[in-house]
């Protein structure tokens, strides 16, 4: 029973990882690619670690694996946020199909100081 659950989870995680890879290849610009990498990549690695926790059934391994999964869930958004912010400040242009850009003109200098929505500089 455990091995069937593990097998299904393992294939699911691998498919999610593959979706992240296809997404990073197909999406038009950096910011849309980041969606694929940060969401699908995180869930893929998290599912893999949950799989190993279920398969082992021992607390010392399961606790390590679950702590690793929790760590990924906490750190993946931070690295995505930092990379997106750095790319925007460095002047990487969004895709021409971008409809609304409320961020435009809000960065007051190259050090990434950002003004709020109501105080237009």
């Amino acid at each position, binding site marked *: 029973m455990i091995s069937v659950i593990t097998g299904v989870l393992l294939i699911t995680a691998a498919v*999610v990882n593959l*979706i992240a890879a*296809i*997404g990073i290849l*197909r*999406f*038009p*610009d950096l*910011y*849309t690619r*980041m*969606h*694929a990498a*940060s*969401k*699908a990549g*995180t*869930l893929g690695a998290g599912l893999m670690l949950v799989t190993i926790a279920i398969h082992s*059934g*021992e*607390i010392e391994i*399961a*606790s390590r694996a679950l702590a690793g999964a929790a760590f990924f*869930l*906490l750190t*993946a*958004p*931070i690295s*995505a*946020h930092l990379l*997106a*912010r750095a790319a*925007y400040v460095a002047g990487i242009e*969004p*895709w021409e*199909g*971008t*409809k*609304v*850009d*409320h*961020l*435009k003109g*809000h960065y007051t200098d190259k050090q*990434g*100081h*950002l*003004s*709020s*929505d*109501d*105080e237009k500089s």
Partner: protein
Amino acid sequence: MSNLFLINVLMAVAWCAVLGSFTLMNLLFGFAVSSGALWLTREQYRTSKYFHRFWLVLGLVLLFLKELVLSVVRVAWLVIRPSRSLNPSFVSFPLTVTKAHEITLLANLITLTPGTLSVDVSDDNKTLYIHCIDVDDVDALRRDIAEGFERKIMEALR
């Protein structure tokens, strides 16, 4: 409130020590038994507030996991569908939460939920800028976040 959580965990550890085997199932069962013990003493030690908050935090975690799975399904659909028409946008979101840890939690939740990725917070902590991968109605998106995650965070952490 975190005191009671610590007591709960310590009682679960004590349960395992008495049994003499630290397996995952024993620890979880010990946690359930000790929270039952705390629930029994809710009249004497006023632990009911702890349980209320416990359910709120658990609800937040479950909501977060559900939204993560939904967001992967949505990204998967955007990835494998044949047409390539997307409507990405940078959207500003006026924040109601003010404390740093609440904003951090909200930004993390937004990043791992369907179609949104937080890019930056303004210097005065009043506006969160979000990148959306495929959005038609900006105001509906703002309303969804304000009434969904932001309200839940305020309920669970205050």
